[in-house]
């Protein structure tokens, strides 16, 4: 597992990486499920393409921020009865992954606060 200071060095996260970590924050999902979750959370504005999604998943796996749930494959039908593809693999956020998402969120919050203090907050229509 990565150390805390190593996690800091991963910031700022690319948007796709942050979206994937957020999508996995409340449930284990497969690649297509992550894409759907991101699209839903962003009201369809962000749709991850397969290349971006799986190259990012590969990096997150290498850094130990997510894990592949090979053990859960056996219980796949229970999770998603509509899933028609046996090859789909599920991914789960690790504590390190959650921590990185939190650090990125704190960084973004700080930036937003900075902008607000400067009077740059958009008018609410």
């Amino acid at each position, binding site marked *: 597992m990565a150390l805390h200071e190593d996690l800091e060095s991963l910031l700022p996260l690319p948007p796709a990486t942050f979206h994937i970590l957020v999508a996995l924050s409340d449930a284990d999902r497969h*690649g297509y499920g992550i894409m759907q979750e991101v699209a839903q959370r962003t009201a369809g504005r962000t749709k991850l393409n*397969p290349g971006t999604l799986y*190259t990012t998943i590969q990096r997150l796996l290498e850094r130990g921020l997510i894990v592949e749930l090979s053990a859960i494959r056996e219980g796949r039908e229970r999770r998603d009865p509509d899933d028609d593809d046996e*090859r789909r693999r599920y991914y789960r956020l690790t504590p390190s992954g959650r921590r990185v998402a939190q650090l990125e969120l704190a960084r973004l919050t700080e930036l937003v606060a900075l902008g607000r203090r400067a009077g740059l907050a958009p008018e609410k229509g």
Partner: protein
Amino acid sequence: MKTTARVPSWADRLYGALLRTYPAPFREEYAGEMRAMFRSRWREERASRGVPGVTRLWLGLFLDTLRTAGREHGEMLGRDLRYAWRSLTSRPSWAFTAAALLTLALGIGAVTAIFTIVHAVLLAPLPYHGADRVVRGLARQLWPHGEDPVGRRVQLGNKQVFTIVGVVGDVRQLSLAEDPTPTMYISTSWFLWPTMTLVVRTQDEPTALAQEVRQTVTRLDPHQPVSDFQTMRTAVAGNAAAPRLNTVLVASFAVLALLLAVVGVAGVVGYGVGQRTREIAVRLALGSTPGRAVRHVLRGGLLMCATGILLGIGAALALGRALSSVLYGVGAYDPATFVVTTAVLFAIAILACWLPAQRVTRIEPSLTLRDG
């Protein structure tokens, strides 16, 4: 949304072709899921937005593949190069690597410097402008304002006075390599040289003229022997023979230096394959293909070659600078020679790595791992 429209086979094949642009290890791991995701996305876009949605999907997929496949290749190359560098610089192979690098750098440096000279001295135009205007040097030197010299009189250091009857172009009298010097031609009635050369211009075959020239000379002076009859072409070729021999010698040294460098590279790569037989056997046993194992070994060799070539360019610049101070008209940096030599050497270096890397394909994982 659950949609059931069938993805046309051409679309499936086209996306399969796009997937082939990713590195093989990534493809083996994720291509199945990516293809499944593509089908789901295609059905979704077709059902919700029709043709415009599918068109936008394709555009996004092309750009996404271009960007991510390129990045994957870059990262894989970076990883392999870092690994190759570690294995090249680790004990006990570092001494071997250093020796090969030195050979390669010196070889490339020497070859480039030598070809810079060959190019500057023998192939490129003369290093001064308007070489044709250097002729008639003496007339111009004596009458710099362009007066007609014919009929004028000149006095030599020995007080002898001569009348000018004509002006001829300057001649490379002794050697093609020497610049024409200011020269006067004096009548043989005043100064008889033991031998004379008669130059005859003809539009016919020159050798057929030999008999006629001999007869004419004999008619004028029966006691005058005529020998060493040769065409102008033969005379010029004879004069160029020595420089040509020098060029051949110099080029031979360059080829020898190159050969030593190639042998060094091939030796190091071959040695590396020998040292890593067990590791390669494990890779093959774990499912790596021989082609991928060869590429893995090749990257290490190419990294070494690239380093050697960089060092060699540095050496060539240093050698070129040293040469430019002793050879007139030879610059320290000749871009054409540098580019051509480096490209040729890199191509040869790839071959020098590729041949020993083929040994990988002969490794039998089961035998190697059992005997090891």
